[in-house]
């Protein structure tokens, strides 16, 4: 573990709140370059909120989030993709009236003026061959799994340094879930760091290298995915063993 290198992402003493109250308390999290990190936790633990803090979609947060040493807390949400962080939000957020290809091209919106759009498209189609077959189809008419592929593909059009995913497998058939996770492993193998929030704890721990466990807005456990999978608390609370 290159712990002496500059961390890719360094979150310290982060708290966040909505009108109803505090959701995250004193979160600290470090992610190294090339890592595949997962965050697990029960419903309402604050996983989505944590991701939304990173991409600056939660306005009321305190603390520090550094990406390659650069403070994100004073960046507006729309600047985040340009810095190399792509967020695939919870739910299948595609542009339903646009074709698959238009959806993907819009993903490179933040870097519109740089070359290589065609190459990026090809890379996404290589990742998800199903999308290549449906490139002219309206995204709203795709199956749930395919829409999730569009959302992930659109994020990859940025060629991000960090890919953030919020429960990509939620509500999808097991066979599609497997396909998605293979794609994530593939994305990681090609050099993108991945931060994955997943309800399916077993699956998350099988693909990630390291994990954090979030409970009621706090980090309660952190460690290598393999040892988390062995941890009695995790096994009982999240793996149902």
């Amino acid at each position, binding site marked *: 573990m290159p712990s002496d290198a500059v961390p890719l992402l360094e979150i310290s003493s982060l708290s966040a709140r909505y009108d109803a109250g505090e959701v995250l308390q004193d979160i600290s999290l470090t992610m190294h370059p090339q890592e595949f990190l997962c965050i697990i936790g029960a419903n309402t633990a604050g996983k989505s909120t944590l991701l939304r803090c990173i991409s600056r979609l939660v306005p009321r947060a305190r603390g520090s989030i550094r990406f390659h040493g650069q403070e994100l807390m004073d960046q507006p949400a*729309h600047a985040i*993709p340009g810095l190399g962080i792509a967020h695939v939000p919870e739910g299948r957020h595609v*542009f339903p009236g646009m074709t698959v290809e238009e959806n993907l091209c819009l993903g490179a*919106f*933040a870097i519109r003026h740089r070359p290589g759009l065609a190459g990026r498209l090809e890379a996404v189609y290589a990742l998800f061959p199903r999308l290549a077959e449906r490139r002219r189809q309206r995204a709203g008419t795709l199956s749930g799994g395919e829409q999730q592929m569009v959302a992930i593909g659109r994020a990859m059009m*940025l060629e991000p340094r960090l890919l953030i995913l919020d429960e990509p497998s939620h509500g999808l058939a097991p066979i599609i879930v497997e396909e998605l996770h293979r794609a994530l492993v593939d994305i990681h193998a090609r050099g993108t760091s991945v931060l994955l929030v997943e309800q399916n704890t077993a699956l998350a721990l099988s693909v990630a290298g390291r994990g954090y466990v979030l409970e009621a807005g706090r980090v309660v456990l952190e460690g290598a995915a393999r040892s988390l999978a062995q941890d009695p608390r995790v096994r009982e609370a999240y793996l149902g063993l």
Partner: protein
Amino acid sequence: MSRALVALALLAAALLPLALESEGYAIHVLTLALLFAALGQAWNIVGGLANQMSLGHAAFFGIGAYAATILQIRFGLSPWLGLVVALALGGLAAALISLPTMRLRGHYFALATLACGEVMRVIANTAAPLTGGPAGISVPFGAEGVWMMRFEGGRPIYWLMLGALVVVTVVFEVIRRGALGYRLRAVRENIAAAEAIGVDTARVKLQAAVISGALTAALGVLYAQFNFFFDPDTVFGVASISVRIALMAIIGGIGTAAGPILGALIVIPLEEFANAALSDRAAGLSQLVYGAVLIAMVLVEPRGLMALRFSWTFRPRRASA
């Protein structure tokens, strides 16, 4: 093919007044239809591209009409310069209204914008020293001449409105096809996804509102020069302006360039016809018939008349291609 068709329609529209009586009723109705087509098109930028159902566009329309007319009365300012002032004031007003309302969705946005138009109406009625109050305001008469937009007969102002419609339509199309159009479409289709790809959603909505408001105010100036006289209840009216503007696009087809034009060419003559044919029969009958026809149109095709055209002509063609 379709480009040639547009050019042909434009040529026909430009030559049409030569076949009509210069001071006649027909040219008056057509000029009004062109004005409302242009207004509907300006509204279409916000209502169609940004998908925000504004019912407050009378605010900008009236601001333009009043600003240019007051400047003409007090300082003899040419209405052409009045147009420039109106563009600036309309854009500014749109920014001020847009900033607090842009996060509202659906009905809430419609109601908030409606209230803004009403506030302007009350202000114009109250600020009598400046606006003439409820008694209204008249464009000063002067010598004929292009510089003061004072023309003989009804043809020049018809051509002026046609020109305005062309300009607003070109602006609409440039926006729709350009980067801003794509961003607006992204926001319209899925705001969470738009934010995720780095669209500054507040900024694109603001841009759309400012452009739409500026153009609407400029059209208010042309209305003043066309009608010579107006009062707060007319130019800031909910039914007379705000709803009517939105109606052009809704009847014709929201989000398409042809929609408001089609809508205005049908709705304005229909209004005039209902008024002329029925107003002496029974009070309110003309409005009743007019309203019934509008309801029927919306029931038959909620997406507007443009959608009918698409379903009739384009589907078979696509199937055979």
